[in-house]
């Protein structure tokens, strides 16, 4: 008999007033009893609507039944059949708009906590089991993957399972891409990301760090070195700025730089680590996405008294996950919505001292379907600030597209691919993730990596 409670088993969390001063994980995870109780809420529907909502088609009802039966290790292997990074996905996937949105239980009450259960299973496995995955037998065929973020890791893992000898080339000094430099420790602990990457390495995937493809080797070089196919998962690169006066003042960061300093370079431990970061008493983050929330919550943890999210539309239009906005507000982040920056003001010696903003109101819907914000005349005002973080998106990095003849790109820089396969205009070269779509989610990038792995296999087999 299923557990018919209308709500998910509550996720234990650090108290907001304590957690906004540390970088430890906010959500603490289910224990075994909680996981079993939540798993029992699953109706094990025959038509499995949840699976269709998952970009990597995790066998959701099957793994949840295994959890309900207390077979946690088996549940882990069930997830791993289609998903290389369950501990990551259980934490950062927007389940509410994917698998959980389609859950039958969500019609009356809350959906099954699929993400929470996935996280539990992955964490339980890492804590209790010895990773002993026997390597698939090699077929001797070399495939190169550029970038070790979610799409690259997924593509590499899936190809390795099929017997390919996969080498990932990573530009940074550690693998993980956005999982390492972008998403903060308090949402996705870095030690855990590395453990999960180790499981991909255990499949025989070789990861070479400090290799900037497009510079040290081009895509054509890789092909002439014997790689039969190449997958490009190089991510979104160049941060966007607003082109308003004052953006080059000291104290203005792109969210990329601010988060990379803190996450990848551990600036929050400075001076025990060598990379500094500057956080003033008053900080504004411009933008309303998940990255903006991450930057704001990081600034708060680094001691800023007042942290504002400055967003030109209203809270309802914010692209960030509800849960992230909720967490940010709990931690004392101040939302200044319907507000748009006009210019950043500086001191005589070139440091940020404030930002002139204007109030906005919502007009007619624009082409994104959201109501277009328009300026309210005479509503200009100044916010006193020492730090401004621009979190208004990014465009794909041109290092690869500019050095790969025959690779077609969109006018905004994204690599053009065939949607179902990830095939680019260049034979044997595939692409996926943010390098194709512009900034999107971890799981969509993983889905693209997965599809490309299947297509690469077919391509090499000559189908």
């Amino acid at each position, binding site marked *: 008999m299923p557990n018919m409670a209308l709500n998910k088993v509550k996720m234990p969390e650090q108290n907001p007033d304590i957690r906004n001063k540390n970088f430890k994980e906010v959500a603490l995870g289910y224990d075994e009893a909680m996981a079993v109780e939540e798993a029992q809420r699953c109706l094990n529907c025959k038509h499995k609507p949840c699976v269709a909502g998952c970009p990597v088609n995790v066998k959701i009802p099957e793994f949840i039944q295994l959890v309900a039966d207390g077979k946690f290790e088996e549940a882990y292997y069930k997830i791993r059949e289609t998903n290389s990074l369950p501990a990551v996905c259980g934490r950062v996937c927007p389940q509410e708009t994917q698998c959980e949105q389609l859950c039958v239980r969500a019609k009356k009450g809350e959906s099954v906590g699929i993400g929470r259960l996935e996280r539990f299973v992955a964490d339980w496995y890492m804590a209790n089991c010895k990773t002993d995955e026997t390597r698939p037998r090699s077929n001797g065929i070399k495939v190169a993957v550029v970038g070790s973020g979610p799409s690259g890791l997924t593509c590499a893992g899936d190809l390795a399972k099929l017997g390919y000898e996969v080498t990932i080339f990573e530009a940074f000094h550690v693998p993980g891409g956005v999982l390492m430099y972008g998403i903060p420790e308090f949402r996705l602990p870095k030690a855990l990301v590395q453990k999960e990457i180790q499981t991909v390495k255990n499949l025989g995937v070789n990861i070479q760090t*400090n290799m900037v493809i497009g510079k*040290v080797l081009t895509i054509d070089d890789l092909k002439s070195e014997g790689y039969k196919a190449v997958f490009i998962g190089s991510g979104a690169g160049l941060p966007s700025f607003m082109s308003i006066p004052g953006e080059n003042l000291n104290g203005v960061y792109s969210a990329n730089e601010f988060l990379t300093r803190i996450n990848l370079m551990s600036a929050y431990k400075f001076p025990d680590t060598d990379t500094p970061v500057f956080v003033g008493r008053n900080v504004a983050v411009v933008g309303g996405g998940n990255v903006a929330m991450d930057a704001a919550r990081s600034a708060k943890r680094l001691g800023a008294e007042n942290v504002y999210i400055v967003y030109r539309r209203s809270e309802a239009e914010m692209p960030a996950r509800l849960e992230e906005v909720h967490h940010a507000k709990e931690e004392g982040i101040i939302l200044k919505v319907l507000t748009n920056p006009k210019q950043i003001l500086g001191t005589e010696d070139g440091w940020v001292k404030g930002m002139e903003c204007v109030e906005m109101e919502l007009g007619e819907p624009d082409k994104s379907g959201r109501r277009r914000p328009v300026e309210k005349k005479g509503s200009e005002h100044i916010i006193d600030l020492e730090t401004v973080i621009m979190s208004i998106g990014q465009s794909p990095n041109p290092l690869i597209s500019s050095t790969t003849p025959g690779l077609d790109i969109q006018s905004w820089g994204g690599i053009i691919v065939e949607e179902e396969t990830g095939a680019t205009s260049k034979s044997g070269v595939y692409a996926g993730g943010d390098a194709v779509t512009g900034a999107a989610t971890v799981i969509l990038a993983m889905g693209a990596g997965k599809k490309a792995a299947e297509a690469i296999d077919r391509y090499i087999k000559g189908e």
Partner: protein
Amino acid sequence: MYKIVRKEILNPSVVLMDIEAPYIARKAEPGQFIIFRIDEAGERIPLTIADYDREKGTVTIIFQIVGKSTRALAEMSEGEALLDFVGPLGVASHLEGYKKVAVIGGGLGAAIAYPQAKKLHALGAEVHAITGFRNKDLIILEKEMEFVSDKLVVATDDGSNGNKGFVTNVLKQLIEEGNKYDLVIAIGPLVMMKAVSNLTREYGIKTLVSMNPIMIDGTGMCGGCRLTVGGKTKFACVDGPDFDGHEVDFDEAMRRQGMYKKQEGKSTELHACKLGGVTNA
């Protein structure tokens, strides 16, 4: 890991190292840079490539001890290895098609100007090299520079090498003497590059400067290295590091360079307490 195969102390605060990095050595060109990191807690530091040997698979870096990381690097010995060494980053200098070029290196800038002079010389351009140092004890690469130039003037601020003056004075004199340069390359401290650019603007001589702002990834991802060039924001790591000296906003670049002065001081101080001085390997 990237092994230090040769270490040479060029002057009390400037060190040369050949680093084993065959992939980078194969592709490196003058004007490009690398980023190194010493250990797990280390920061990512960009350094312009001073030379490379494609056959030996080594990349030469020449650096000045200015902060914690460069000091720690200087304290390493031949045979030891750097944790991370990535490159070649940035756009290579466009040096083709020039007839007569003045290549100017101020202080450590001489190390970065050297590969440019070498390449220009190899391409058949007439190269006039001008290097400037605070005093004669700080002079570096004199022989090397002489070898790749048709004329070399080494100036010191205090005249201790018998030739007192700034590189700008030397350049002005050479121009006034009738030397017609179709390009000036100026590499060194921001104030020096600014002064040279101001001078050459008067004469209408195209001038390239090499910018080395604070950066993290060096691949265009963080935007920390942004500069204003010709009124537009540019990223030194992917748009540069060479820029038209007449277009660069040097005052802004100088302000941005000082962004972490306070924190760096703290970090260097802590480090200095733990370690001694620099020795040859």
